Every structure is written in C-alpha cells, then in structure tokens.
C-alpha cells in the first residue's frame, strides 16, 4: 500500500480523505462555538433580569455611553468580518498574496476596535462609572446605577477578551499563510479562525443595541 500517493501532506493519517478531515474540523469548531454562545447567554440573562427590574435606571445610565464610538466600532467589526470572509475566498481561489493582505486588514480593524474601546473605558474609569463598589459617579438618577456598569463592563469585557483571542487566532493563520501552509485544497484553519471571528461579530451585533441604543 502506498500512502504517499493518496494522502496529501496536510491530511492526518486517521482521515480517509481531505473532505472528511475538513468536515470534522468544522464540526468541532461549531461545537466549540455553541459553548461560547452559552457562555455569553449567562451575561445576557444577567442583563435581562436587571433591565426588567430597573428599566428607568438603564435608560438614564445608557445615556452616558458614547453612541458615536459604539457605531464606529460596529462598522469596524462588520468590516473586519467581511475582510476575513474575503480572505477565505481568496485562499479558495489560490490567491495567497490577497489572503495575506486581507488577514492583515482584519487584524488592523480588530486593533482599531480595541483602541476605541480603550478610549471608552478610560473615560469611564476617569468619571468613576465603574461596576459595584468602585462606582463613584453621582450624575445618574435611578436605583443602583452601578449595576448598569457591572453589566456593561462584564459584557464588553468578555467580548473584548474574545477580540484578543480572535486576533491571536488570526495572527496564527496569517503566519501559516505566509509560511505557505495553505492552498485552495487546504485552508480549514483559516475557515475556523473566521468562524470564531464572526461569532465575536455576532455577539457585538446584539451588544451594541442592548447597551448603547436603549429606547
């Protein structure tokens, strides 16, 4: 039996063909993604409970978030989702150079997102709009405004950690693309990094209206 002829270098020996390997890898990624969805759902429930108890306080407190910066970050994140989807398409067409450029663009957009988030956070730190006992701001009417900032920092903080994790994943596939590991026949790791990045985008699509655009 000659394995070298039927098995391309990227195909692990326990898979019979590359399509089976690709499907298995993506199945594993999707199962991981649903655990991420459930992780965030705990915090969304936290949000729902407190918003239902203190609807007026949520409206008063959310006015201290910067809608312009939130909108900017939404557009940045959606664009980065588009660029990584296009990066995968370029690899399907065997255009390695374009994939590299699009992955670098995605990383740059992710960095812009974090920089904007840094400015928002430092402004809130400066004003004392912080969670729980660290809350020292006095300008918000309503019961327990510090709860809004607990929700805000927990949700955006966990999301921010995911942005960083996504950047690491994209950086890894970028390196492998530069090292010529991928081709139109094999690019599953870029697809999986892309799936993770789109999930980060999906979470933000819900976070943005729930935190910045309350009625």
């Amino acid at each position, binding site marked *: 039996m000659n394995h070298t002829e039927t098995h391309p270098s990227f195909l692990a020996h326990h898979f019979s063909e590359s399509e089976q390997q690709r*499907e298995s890898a993506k199945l594993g990624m999707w199962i991981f993604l*649903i655990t991420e969805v459930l992780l965030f759902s705990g915090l969304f429930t936290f949000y*729902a409970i*407190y918003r239902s108890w203190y609807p007026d306080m949520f409206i008063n407190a959310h006015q201290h978030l910067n809608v312009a910066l939130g909108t900017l970050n939404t557009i940045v994140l959606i664009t980065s989702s*588009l660029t990584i989807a296009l990066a995968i398409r370029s690899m399907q067409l065997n255009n390695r150079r374009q994939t590299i450029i699009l992955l670098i663009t995605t990383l740059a957009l992710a960095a812009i997102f974090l920089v904007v988030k840094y400015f928002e956070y430092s402004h809130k730190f400066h004003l004392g709009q912080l969670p729980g006992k660290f809350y020292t701001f006095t300008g918000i009417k309503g019961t327990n405004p510090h709860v809004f900032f607990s929700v805000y920092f927990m949700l955006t903080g966990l999301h921010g950690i995911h942005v960083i994790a996504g950047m690491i994943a994209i950086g890894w596939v970028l390196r492998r693309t530069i090292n010529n590991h991928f081709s139109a026949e094999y690019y599953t790791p870029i697809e999986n990094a892309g799936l993770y990045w789109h999930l980060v985008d999906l979470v933000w699509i819900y976070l943005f209206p729930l935190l910045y655009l309350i009625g």
Partner: protein
Amino acid sequence: MSIKAHHHITPLKTYLSVGVALMVLTIITVVVSFVHFGAFNLIIAMVIASIKAVLVALFFMHLLYDNKLFMAIFSISLIFVSVFIILTMFDTMQRDSIDEVKAKPIKKNAIIYDK
C-alpha cells in the same frame, strides 16, 4: 481515491452586498433608536440585530452552503439560550404575582452594594 474538493466559492458580489446590507441595517438601528416608540424600541432593535445575525451566519459563516448539521447545531444552541432567558424571566417577572412577600428578598439580595 479522489481528493476533489467541492467547496462552494461565494461570489464577490454576494459578500459585498451582505456587507453593504449590514452597514445599512446598522445605520437604521442607530437612527430608529432616537425615535420614541416606547417598548417597541427594544423589539425593533432586536429584530434588526437578528436580521444582521442571520446574514452573518448564512453568508459569512457559510451556514447556507455547508453541511446542514452545522446549522442544526447552531440553531439548537440558540433554542437553549431562549429557553434559558425566557424561563428565567418568567420567574423574575412573575414571582410577586404568586407571592408578593417572596419577591422582595430576591430583589434585595440581588443588589450587592446598596448605594
């Protein structure tokens, strides 16, 4: 054994159209949030967010073209999330309609730092 890949390659036009649609929906959701519809603001915002999420999942995440098992897995997770939130909200919102006294300590204990 053939190692032919039958991967779907989405046309560039589709990706760009979805991108533009997401931008337009983002702008609509921001503009609508400044108009007062009362409780409907939340519903409108969630409907727009869900349309955006479906676009991202179907086209960017390739759920439309990939093995339908992935779509089933993802949908099941969303069903469980709605069960989680809806059942929790039933308890949170309706507790005092059964026993007014029992609702009070829950709300009080839920606040860790009373300001």
